[in-house]
């Protein structure tokens, strides 16, 4: 890796850093969201005719 120039070296480390970012973000936010109950997905098919009509 010492033979990488600045452009390729930047890509290499940014690639690893962005993977780390994904991992850290995923771990921190694993169970953080509390809003799922706001939208009831189970009603989709039941409500399809009404939503189509409204639109």
């Amino acid at each position: 890796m010492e033979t990488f120039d600045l452009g390729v070296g930047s890509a290499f480390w940014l690639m690893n850093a962005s993977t780390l970012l994904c991992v850290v973000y995923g771990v921190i936010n694993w169970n953080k969201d509390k809003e799922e109950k706001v939208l009831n997905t189970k009603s989709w098919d039941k409500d399809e005719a009404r939503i189509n009509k409204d639109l």
Partner: protein
Amino acid sequence: MNMLENIIIIIYLAVLGYLGFVGYKQTKSSADYLIAGGNTHPFVMALSYGATFISTAAIVGFGGVAAWLGNSLLWLTFCNIFVGVFIAFVFLGNPTRKMGIRLNAHTFPELLGRRFNSKFIQVFGGILIAFFMPLYASAVLIGGTEFIVAYFKVDYHMALLVFSIIITGYVLAGGLKGVMLTDALQGVIMFVAMMILLVMVFDAVGGIDAGFSKLEMVWNKTVASLGSANLKDLKAGSPDFMMKLSMNWGFQGWNKMPIFLSEGWLFVITTITMGVGIGVLAQPQLVVRFMTVKSKNELNRAVLIGGVFIIAMTGIVFIVGSLTNVWYYEFNEGKNALQSAGGVGKVIPHFINAAMPKWFAFIFLFALISAAMSTLSSQFHAMGTAIGRDVFEQIVGKHTSNSLLITRTGIVIMIVISVSLAYLFDKQPAIIARSTAIFFALCASIFLPVYFGGLFWKRMTQKGAIASMVVGTVITTFWLLFVHFQEAKELGLCKMLFGVNSLLSGKIIFVDAMIVALPLSALTAVVVSLLTKPESSTLLKKCFEN
């Protein structure tokens, strides 16, 4: 083929069949069939997204390009992870999911159409997918079939037929549930194969630092010596021609970026990195996956899995691709990868057969077939829903009780078209090989401004969205047909009409269509939206409020 290989193939097919059956049993409504019921596990969702994104072309094609052009391709991996996973999941995923639920949207064109209350947008999006995705699908189909033919020594047409029937079976029966479950299995196979490959390649070239250090020496010994050669004296398409061409384009070594703003720099950054890396944000078959999970938590968890998966795919294959030059130099009489394998597309298969043990060649074949199958199944599903739900149902009227049947019929029609293209073009003409880039450029410049504006800009209007899509279509088509050095030449219309391969000359012809069309398409969306009447508060409330 020995007994063990036979048993493994039968087990693999049996598991695929079982997962397709599980999808079938769990599919009871349109929502189940089109968006997997909106309750997919994050592991399945992330692997399905990644496995759909990474096709055989990404592993074999781009791996070969890395052997040719070197580690500058790592910019694409960075873009794949940061834009294709982090930005996509963190910033687009949840707004897409929530708007999809509010508007009861089951496909990407349906989401856009309902956001702007426009049948035209949904039908236009559906037609675009139904028209261009079969070319892209046939390229993946041809690539996957060719590996089966090469390994098992069977007839191409028979292999294509069997391969297509297997995928058709679980897509048709299991819908998106079946597709995503099989994608997850195939993603695991791909991940394991790539990890083994990385370890074995570093071992073969003497370690990480030693391998990369030797790359510079191999460039100096096998490529730098071509510096005094004239490109016209070399046979077009030959390995030395390709390496000399890369030097003329500004490449200076496999561990170095090409000269800033040279043809090579423009090709790597605009066509490869941005064309594919940004284009992924507006891929219909990927966007629909955001609608398959029940909460933001699933998306957050999928970020972790997706990021690791993508670096294990493109990160590894690009590094391995460039390091094949070291292996060939040391074990094949001082030749580089292209000189040894004979062509860019041949490097990875040749390397696997020449450098790896036979047991790994079999595992790698499975990974490649899995990559092809996971991409194809999602393409078939997206094309079928586009022609069935977005085009046919919109033209004949609203959804009926036959909605599922219509979608399934659409899938069968689109599979027949894709397989027919693969039969017709079994020699994979250049236009088929370029279809991935064409589809990515079209999706980015046509869908991306409308998708972003639809999610985040309430002032964006229906007229602004339609104008943006039309401008994106016109500019991208013009650039592909008459300017870009690869597509314009291979499509041949420019030559036929004007007697030249491209209407422009110089470095501009190396700039990807998306780089030109996307800003113009976005600008059109902004200007036309500001000049037209805002959408009704009723529609905005439906789109943005729970």
